[in-house]
Every structure is written in structure tokens, then in C-alpha cells.
């Protein structure tokens, strides 16, 4: 992905509260327009995060698998 990331959340190796909770936290506090990347080593969040982004109507920009973890990128649009 060739994107400018404004904020990055490194939730690798975190069992609690986990990547999606961290993303939700950041989505609440960052201004509209922010591009946020979540790093997660949890396979479940590679599926759940895009689903949640879609459900709340934010913009899903994509995901990429790196060495054993995922980088998932979202833009806060509302």
C-alpha cells in the first residue's frame, strides 16, 4: 500500500483490549480525515476490523500481510 499514515496503533502481541478496541478508541479521538493504521498479529482482527469499519460507515483502505502480522488501514470519514 502506498498511503500516508497519520496515526499508527501497534497492537501486536496484545491480548487485551486488542486491536479492534484500540482502533475504536483512536477513531473516537482523532479528527475526521485521519488515516489510521492498525498493526495486529491476531488473525481474527484481519477479518473483524474490515467488517466493523464497513458496519460503522468508515472508509476501509485495505490490509496487507507482513511477517506474521497484518497492517489494516482505515480513514475516518465521519
Amino acid at each position, binding site marked *: 500500500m502506498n498511503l500516508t499514515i497519520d496515526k499508527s496503533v501497534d497492537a501486536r*502481541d*496484545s491480548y*487485551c*483490549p*486488542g486491536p479492534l478496541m484500540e482502533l475504536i478508541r483512536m477513531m473516537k479521538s482523532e479528527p475526521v480525515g485521519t488515516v489510521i493504521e492498525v498493526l495486529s498479529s491476531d488473525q481474527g482482527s484481519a477479518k*473483524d476490523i474490515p467488517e466493523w469499519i464497513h*458496519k*460503522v460507515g468508515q472508509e476501509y483502505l485495505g490490509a496487507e500481510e507482513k511477517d506474521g502480522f497484518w497492517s489494516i488501514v482505515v480513514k475516518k470519514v465521519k
Partner: protein
Amino acid sequence: MGKRIVIIGGGTGGTIVANLLARGLRTELRSGEVTVNMLSASEKHVYQPGFLYVAFGRMQDDEIIRDQRGLLDPLINLYVDPAVKIDTESQTVTAQSGRSFPYDYLVIATGSRIVPEEVPGLKEGAHWFYDLAGAKKLRKALKEFEGGRIVVSVGVPHKCPVAPLEVTFMLDDLFSQNGLKEKYELFYTYPIARVHVLEPVAQWAVKAFERRGIRYETFFNMKEVDPLKKQIHSEEGSTLDYDLLIAVPPHKGMPLIEESGLGADGWIPTDKHSLTMAGKENVFVVGDTTNIPISKAGSTAHFEADTVAESLICMIKEGCPGRRYDGKVFCFVETSLEEGTYVWFNYNTPPNPGEPSQMIHWFKLAYNRLYWLSARGIL
């Protein structure tokens, strides 16, 4: 001049750090080579996990509140004078009284607070057990409850990740015992795709929900509450009617942190192993106020405090940085009014909850009293 350590916050993390320093640096403190000054916003120390039991009428105020001075080793100087500014350039903390506290090493342990006002209508429409006044108000509401739908809803971020499940199971037991089983419905909501953030706990909890007839909705983030219509709306677009709403409100760190420019929303960027504030080797952060993506829990604050105290003692005595924090967290989970289980995990080991038992529940009740030994740095 001797080395000055300042600790801000006399809660779980700050108190344990202080008492461990008093033990590890006793000679240096007596000779004046080292001084430890603690600034705290309150002269009282509150055992917050007790709030859950207060809500159910199973603990009283005097069991969960102690004088902070009495918990601290006499070698620690306590100032009941909240910090209003932290300046990491001049290495000085200013207190509300105007007094300033220069430091060589700083420990920030100011914890977190609920911000129900972040969700419109929540303050007016919901109950919670996340502070003492809220727990007492909920206790009254539970006594008066005659039936209907109870919605348990969870904000992000929050401390004590297992509390929403615990309150749900305890409520189900309470109303079953009170003969209301047929007259009420419990509805649990959770912000992510499963009923608890820890997957093994979620798998176990879903089975318990099904057995007990507790309904649930996942991907539910509180957006707004309408206290007149008694409805709660989610960010994801759904609406639930309630008769009694019990919320775990979203949390923020303390205003001091944001006002001093140390971290957005009061969370301080912290190295997950050394527990130092990003870019500052002489500033340690303990407990809820870190931005580390692990549980905000008393046990986290406790294990972090052990690490920080050991690091400080090592730096002062031998000039070397100390131990690394491995992400250890331990949580008891009440699974009913009579049984409980527990989880522990760290950065590398996933949680693995065991079968609930009466014995673990009793152990939790015992810990509720042993906590005072933890705070003293004995346990």
C-alpha cells in the same frame, strides 16, 4: 544534593511503587541520599474493584476506603496536593497549592476516569458501578427493580475488562434468587465482534449466556441514549429499548496529562517493556495512564509497579536500567454470585480461563481484604 523521586498519584500503582522504594532504598532514604515525595489528589485510598460488590450490597464503604497516609511507609513524604503541571524539560511538577517539586526521577500513576458525558444522554439515562456514588445509586435501583429489560453496554476504552461480564452474571443470579427470573430480560452488548475481547473468555461466556438465556449483540458501540424514550442507539445503527441501563462508560486519563501536553486523551505514550515515557528515560508511567494496549487493571498497575520500583532501585544503587515488564496481567472473573474463574496472560502467552469454581470465588473475596497488603507492597 540527594536524588529526588516524585510519584504522582496515590492509587494502586503509585502506592506500591512508593512502598517498594521505601523497602529497597531504606538506607538511602534514612541518610537523605534519596527522597521520595508523593503527590496525591486525595487523602483517601479507594479499592475500586469493591464498587462491583457495593452495587450488589455485598461490601460497604468502610471496607474499600483507607487513609492513604496509613498505607504508606513513614519514609515516604505524602502531599495531599494534586499536581497541576508536569514540566519534563525543567524536571518539575507544580502542585495546586503553588508549591513546586523538582525531580531527578518521576513516576506518573494518575490512573483514569470515566467520561459518561462523551455519550449524549448517558449521564441522564444510565447507571454504572465505576465510581462509589454510581455504585450506591445502582444498588438502590437494583433493590427497586421489579422487572423488565436490563441492558448492559460497554464503552471504549475502559478499565477492568472483565467487569461487564461479571456484572451480567451476578445480575442474572440476583434476579433469579429474587424470584424475578420470568419477569426480566438481560441484554448484553459489546463493542467488537465477540462478547469479550479475550477469545477464550468469549467462547466460554457465550455458552454461559445461552445456558442462562441472556441475549446479546456484538459490534455495539454506544452512540446516544434517549432517557425519555428509554432507548440506546449504537454507532453501528441499531436501537435497544431498556428499563434499566447499566453502562461501563468510556474512560480518559487525567486532565493533568493532556494539560501538560504529555498525551492525547490523558494516555501517555509509554515503552511497553521499560515503562518509561517515550523519549524520557527518567520518567516512568504506571497503571491505567499508559497507552500500552493491554488491560487497564489493578493487577497490571501492580506488576508494572514491581518493575518500575526495581528499575529505580537499580538505577539509583548501580546506575543501570532495571527489569523489563513482560505484559503480565491477572484477573479474577466472577461467573455468578457463588463461583468464579481467573485469567492470566502476558505479551507472549494467551489467556486460558479454567472451569469456574466456588473456591476461586472465595479467593476473590479473600483478595478483596488482602488488597491492603498488596498496596503496602507486602503481597
